[in-house]
């Protein structure tokens, strides 16, 4: 499989980023819900938040790279009726927007007092906006609402992918799993 996308298929980089972020973000949702109710004397009381912040920042960097990669690559042809294609393209764009806002609100919570975020103890990412005490509470509220909203959103996205796979019986889901191309090529060979 090649690294870059073609007009038909996703390349390895897009596939790996898609699934890596999907699994991480769902995990981050669970971690977030779990950590805020931990007991003060729980060994994970600080570690849980630290992990959430560290993974969140890595995801933010990954998202920036993903947007660059998307703009530098062809987008594989969307399958479906004209309006389904229109919905699909805007739902995809909505993912990027929601992820960006979700991650940035998280960043703004931790940096509300003008201090940077420690990322896995590797390095500290600085606070880019000036301190604004009280921001952590408003941003915390948005972060929670957006997290629940995004889970509903990816639920819809997953349902649509399954619809393509089981009802339309097209390769929308398979090509994101990277397991369709050989089959498709074989069919092409047969046609030849």
């Amino acid at each position: 499989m090649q690294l870059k996308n073609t007009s038909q298929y996703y390349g390895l980089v897009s596939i790996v980023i898609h699934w890596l972020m999907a699994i991480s973000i769902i995990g981050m949702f669970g971690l977030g819900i779990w950590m805020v109710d931990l007991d003060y004397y729980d060994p994970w009381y600080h570690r849980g938040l630290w992990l959430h912040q560290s993974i969140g920042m890595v995801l933010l960097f990954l998202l920036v790279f993903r947007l660059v990669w998307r703009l530098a690559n062809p987008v594989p042809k969307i399958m479906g009726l004209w309006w389904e294609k229109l919905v699909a393209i805007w739902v995809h764009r909505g993912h990027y927007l929601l992820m960006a806002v979700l991650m940035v609100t998280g960043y703004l919570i931790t940096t509300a007092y003008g201090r940077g975020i420690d990322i896995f103890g590797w390095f500290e990412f600085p606070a880019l906006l000036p301190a604004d005490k009280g921001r952590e509470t408003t941003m915390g509220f948005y972060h929670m609402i957006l997290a629940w909203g995004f889970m509903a959103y990816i639920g819809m996205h997953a349902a649509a992918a399954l619809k393509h796979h089981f009802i339309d019986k097209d390769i929308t889901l398979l090509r994101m799993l990277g397991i369709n191309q050989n089959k498709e090529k074989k069919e092409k060979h047969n046609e030849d």
Partner: protein
Amino acid sequence: MKIKLIIGAALVALGISTSAIAEDYVIDKKGQHAVIQFKIAHLGYSWLIGRFNDFEGTFSYDEKIPSAAKVNVTINTASVDSNHAARDKHLRSPDFFNVDKFPTSTFVSKSFKELGDGKAKLSGAFTLNGVTKDINIDVTHVGHGPDPWGNYRRGFEGTTNLNLADWNIPFAPKLGPASANVELYFSFEGIRK
């Protein structure tokens, strides 16, 4: 002399007694010569010190009749500041001060008693998290006199100790036995009206 008499007469005519003017002070919020601070044990190993940055209040104090002194303070609970974003977010949540439901905390004095040697005892109703209870505050006179800019100022400081269990703070028991009590400290400088 004549002018003073005219001013005096005018004030009487307006129903303002000069002695009342002499007693009433507004806490200097603008110049931030006032602080409300709390101090609580962290695990029993050190102290955590935080503040409420936004509050306002007035007091009246007449040296001739100190027992008539009154104090009124309103604290914006969302202004809690322990110098740590995540902790302050937690302090504002329903686990602690529940600031959406209880945006203000108030103190209204009921009695003031001079103990001599610059000390006094202030009692009053303190409201926090929707709970109102009478508390006693140990007060010390700090100083008073004209300031260089044409006003008259008077300052007090005080401390009191609160048991967290009394104030409807759900997270309090989780802080551990060393952190059952919090010490409140304030220093107020009033500008005479």
